[in-house]
């Protein structure tokens, strides 16, 4: 399928869409005018597709500097009467949380959906926080789709709800829903284009204490009304088998539950919750009041389970509740059909036609992810490490989030402390005040724009001493290569002013600033040594493009190892660990030309000068 189908597909047509692609189709059918994001797995593909289609859809789309800015862009659009969409990974909502709280208080005029893509089991994140807690902190109506079709349908529904009650709506997905592909039947696109107009109303839009108190009162009233809507929503559905045992489930967990129940022909009633907050209390009460047992199946925290227990307490019911709290199901990580099956067997006794299951008999080596061949981060790590060794320093390496976090792996082991995006710089300030160790911290270019600038100001102002290496690979690589403010192009592919990292660093007042090409090993090493000896904040910008975005040069270097000269010291294999270099079965060292990018770092570091290069012409 050509991705433009997401925009041009006609009513009734069926497409095989990724959850994230279905979200984009949702914006097309709902007539969204403004969309904004900061990339993050598992929501990144929404932005990747929008950046291709927004222009033709007559929509404005941007990759904002960070999630807080993204949310603010969409909040302003919605308060001006336009439909807006902001989306982020779960931890992105932490960054946006301050403004998120306020936009829910203030409400909107045009519809606004905030999508949070949670990551149960932590496939590519720093935690598996359950953002349904944010529904409760903020008081925001929340929908939880189970598949791509529902993502699209709930987008349309969400915008109507948002406008009816003048409140933003949170859509909570998980990795397995965002990265699930399924058949999506399309409806008609909404092509009415609108221009926003902001009608001033400080009582609604400026939360000084007197106004904020009123806003909170109105919010609570709205949510009481919306509870009725949730209890009657078409997305909260009962599958009644007239049983005394029931299951309440949402999101991906619903898929596992219904497959297990149907495959094993279990006599169980199901309540599928799609509109999950305000918790549809009346509906849940009706569903459980005559049941003996109810199993709550949800990812990750026992949130609905506690809500169900509250309903039971409130109405004095006798129904027994099973879930995480009684260890019927595991407390953490994502579920699978097998996990749900095990849980159900603790509640209902049934026979299984189980097949013999296998584990591998031969022990298998792991296959961890690694920096690409020719990755500039590898060269920077190698060189900093050598500089530190040559000066015989005891250095700590606060690190940050991006491809370069893979520097945690052997042989580099140069990621010692990490909290969240931007923390490399802030924590370096703290280490500088707390220890006499040398400090070299690493941050990527996209992360620097996202959250690295305020802590750098902090460092200069508070007279800290550390080296900050800004790994400027000219892209947001980890999430698939999105542009950021340091590039001359914006989220819709238009040319845009390029914000200079160098000028920012200078303007902040950093007195030691060097820009290096990390693939020039010896020059870089001398600069790192100087930086390490500088008394103050020293910034080194290591500038070289990521291999994802760098076009292969037609005159790329073709590397070869001279077996006569190579004495098998394995410096290139063990200290550099470029995946293109390998030890053949006969023990000789060789370079796989399929993978090699010709960066020449291995050639520069070979003590025997055994690695040579030819220009490919």
């Amino acid at each position: 399928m050509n991705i433009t189908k997401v925009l041009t597909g006609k009513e009734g047509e069926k497409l095989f869409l990724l959850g994230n692609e279905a979200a984009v189709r949702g914006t097309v059918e709902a007539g969204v005018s403004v969309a904004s994001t900061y990339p993050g797995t598992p929501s990144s593909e929404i932005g990747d597709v929008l950046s291709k289609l927004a222009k033709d859809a007559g929509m404005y789309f941007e990759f904002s500097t960070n999630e807080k800015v993204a949310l603010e862009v969409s909040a302003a659009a919605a308060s001006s009467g336009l439909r807006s969409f902001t989306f982020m990974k779960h931890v992105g909502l932490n960054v946006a949380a301050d403004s998120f709280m306020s936009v829910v208080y203030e409400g909107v005029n045009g519809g606004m959906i905030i999508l949070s893509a949670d990551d149960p089991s932590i496939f590519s994140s720093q935690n598996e926080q359950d953002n349904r807690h944010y529904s409760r902190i903020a008081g925001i109506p929340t929908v939880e789709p189970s598949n791509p079709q529902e993502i699209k349908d709930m987008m349309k529904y969400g915008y109507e709800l948002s406008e009816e009650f003048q409140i933003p709506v949170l859509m909570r997905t998980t990795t397995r829903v965002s990265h699930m592909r399924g058949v999506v039947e399309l409806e008609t696109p909404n092509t009415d284009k609108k221009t926003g107009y902001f009608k001033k109303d400080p009582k609604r839009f400026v939360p000084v204490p007197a106004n904020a108190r009123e806003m909170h009162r109105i919010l609570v009233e709205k949510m009481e009304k919306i509870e009725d809507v949730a209890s009657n929503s078409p997305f909260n559905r009962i599958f009644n088998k007239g049983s005394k045992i029931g299951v309440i489930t949402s999101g991906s967990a619903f898929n596992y539950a219904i497959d297990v129940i149907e495959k094993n022909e279990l006599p169980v009633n199901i309540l599928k919750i799609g509109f999950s907050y305000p918790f549809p209390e009346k509906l849940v009460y009706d569903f459980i009041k005559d049941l003996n047992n109810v199993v709550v199946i949800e990812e990750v925290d026992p949130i609905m389970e506690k809500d169900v227990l509250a309903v039971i307490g409130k109405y004095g019911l006798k129904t027994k509740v099973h879930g995480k709290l009684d260890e019927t199901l595991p407390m953490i990580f994502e579920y699978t059909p097998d996990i749900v099956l095990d849980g159900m067997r603790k509640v209902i006794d049934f026979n299984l036609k189980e097949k013999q299951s296998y584990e591998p008999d031969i022990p298998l080596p792991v296959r961890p992810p690694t920096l690409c061949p020719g990755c500039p981060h590898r060269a920077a790590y190698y060189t900093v490490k050598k500089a530190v060794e040559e000066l015989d320093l005891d250095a700590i390496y606060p690190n940050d989030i991006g491809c370069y976090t893979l520097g945690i792996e052997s042989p580099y082991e140069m990621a010692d402390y990490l909290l969240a995006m931007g923390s490399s710089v802030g924590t370096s300030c703290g280490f500088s005040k707390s220890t006499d160790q040398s400090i070299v911290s690493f941050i990527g270019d996209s992360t620097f724009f996202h959250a690295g600038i305020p802590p750098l100001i902090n460092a200069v102002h508070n007279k800290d001493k550390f080296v900050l290496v800004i790994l400027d690979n000219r892209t947001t690589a980890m999430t698939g290569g999105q542009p950021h403010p340091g590039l001359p192009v914006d989220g819709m592919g238009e040319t845009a002013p390029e914000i200079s990292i160098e000028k920012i660093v200078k303007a902040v007042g950093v007195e030691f600033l060097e820009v290096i090409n990390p693939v020039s090993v010896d020059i870089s090493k001398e600069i790192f040594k100087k930086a390490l000896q500088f008394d103050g904040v020293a910034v080194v910008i290591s500038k070289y493009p990521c291999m994802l975005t760098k076009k292969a040069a037609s005159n790329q270097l073709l590397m070869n190892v001279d077996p006569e000269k190579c004495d098998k010291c394995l410096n290139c294999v063990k200290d550099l660990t470029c995946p293109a270099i390998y030890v053949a079965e006969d023990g000789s060292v060789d370079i796989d030309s399929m993978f090699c990018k010709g960066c020449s770092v291995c050639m520069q570091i070979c003590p025997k000068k055994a690695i040579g290069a030819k220009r490919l012409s």
Partner: protein
Amino acid sequence: MKPYNIYICGVGGQGIIKTSIVIGEAAMKSDMGVVMSEVHGMAQRGGVVSTELKIGDSKSPIIEKSNANLLIAFEPMEALRAISKASKDTYVVVNTSPIMPFNITESEVPYPQIPDILDELKSKVKGVFALDAEKAAKDAGHILSLNMVMLGGATAVSGFPIDKEAVLKSMRANLPQKSIPINMKAYEKGFEFVSSN
């Protein structure tokens, strides 16, 4: 219909997701239900990549253990890593050219011998079709057509629920126009291999 479950695994960069989409769209166009799960993000920097496809009426795209009807392994060791999805009723199509993990020289556990991998697979599943897909792809004209060699092989396995014609149509709709001739050749090499074994 009874679900037909396909587990596809290998290493980042081998074209696994594309292959899975070709199968999924072919199923959809053949009026079958289909759901699929993909892995994106961190795992793609040279790590393990897998997709799961369920054709039929399933709601969840995650295959229960021992419930894959077909395992398509783009890399031999990864076939074994996925063995918990297989049973004595599973067919396996496996590429025999290995990709070493980048840290294998430092690893305490060596890369297993290919014949040992194949023997273990054969002892556990219903049938194993082991082919050197890397060579077949190069013979077809480009190493990157390896995924179509594997797809061709998969389509020829007995019980595969989608017609070859539908798979080919989906392939043409999903790959760049100018790559089609090479990919067609690659596909036929895989198909031939499995049909004649």
